[in-house]
């Protein structure tokens, strides 16, 4: 499995390099770069997952457990809080948009909410992990 993950890592680096070259070429030629950017995202996702898998297999071979029951529980609990925060912030922005006539656009709200909810998930997970009652 470790060997397969290393092959995955090498393939994702190759895909990332190829897709980045394609994006730069399209930008240089003035063409649309949205299609190759999907391959960049795919390459990045594969690269990160292969790296995490290699770390996990190495740690497991040394007898260390990474995702035990407690860390899983912390992730789920912080996910619930982040979910409620995401829904709450969307409801407040929708209400404020209709009451105060802010004329909010799709991009100006959803990107902010997406980044805020992802960071709140990470920060709440860290807080619950430190708090130690989960």
């Amino acid at each position: 499995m470790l060997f397969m993950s290393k092959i995955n890592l090498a393939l994702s680096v190759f895909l990332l390099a190829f897709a980045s070259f394609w994006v730069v070429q399209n930008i240089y030629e003035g063409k649309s770069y949205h299609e190759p950017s999907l391959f960049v995202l795919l390459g990045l996702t594969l690269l990160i997952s292969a790296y995490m898998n290699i770390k996990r297999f190495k740690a497991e071979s040394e007898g260390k457990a990474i995702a035990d029951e407690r860390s899983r529980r912390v992730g789920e609990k912080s996910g619930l809080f982040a979910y409620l925060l995401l829904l709450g912030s969307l409801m407040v922005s929708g209400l404020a948009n209709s009451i105060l006539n802010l004329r909010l656009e799709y991009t100006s709200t959803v990107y902010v909410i997406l980044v805020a909810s992802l960071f709140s998930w990470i920060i709440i997970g860290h807080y619950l992990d430190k708090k130690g009652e989960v």
Partner: protein
Amino acid sequence: MKFRKDKDILQFMGVGIGMILAGLATFKYLHPAGMGLAISGAVLTLIGLLFATKPKEILLQDERSKRINEKAGYYGFWAILAIITVMNYLNITKLWIPTFFDTYSIIIFTGIYCWIILRWHFNKKGDTE
């Protein structure tokens, strides 16, 4: 009839009454949509009054239902993020340009229904400790 006057009930009723006041102020000075806020505040206050007559133990969740809520919320969170990502990609490639209210309604309804369905699923599945 005996009403409980502990911190939880007072906080709950305080939020409900605050929502009524904020909704009435919004209705009078800003926008008619404030009436919705006032009505939901009134419903919250009524629910608070109803639960004030019950003992506190009736509201305590057991460990299994707490775990089911957390697990369903976690998967609901990732479902919402996946939907936002797909909508972003459609927006970038100009296949579909969503307005604010398209996004708002799709995300909120998907999130809420996903949570409800996942709770039902984890409850039926039965291997959540």
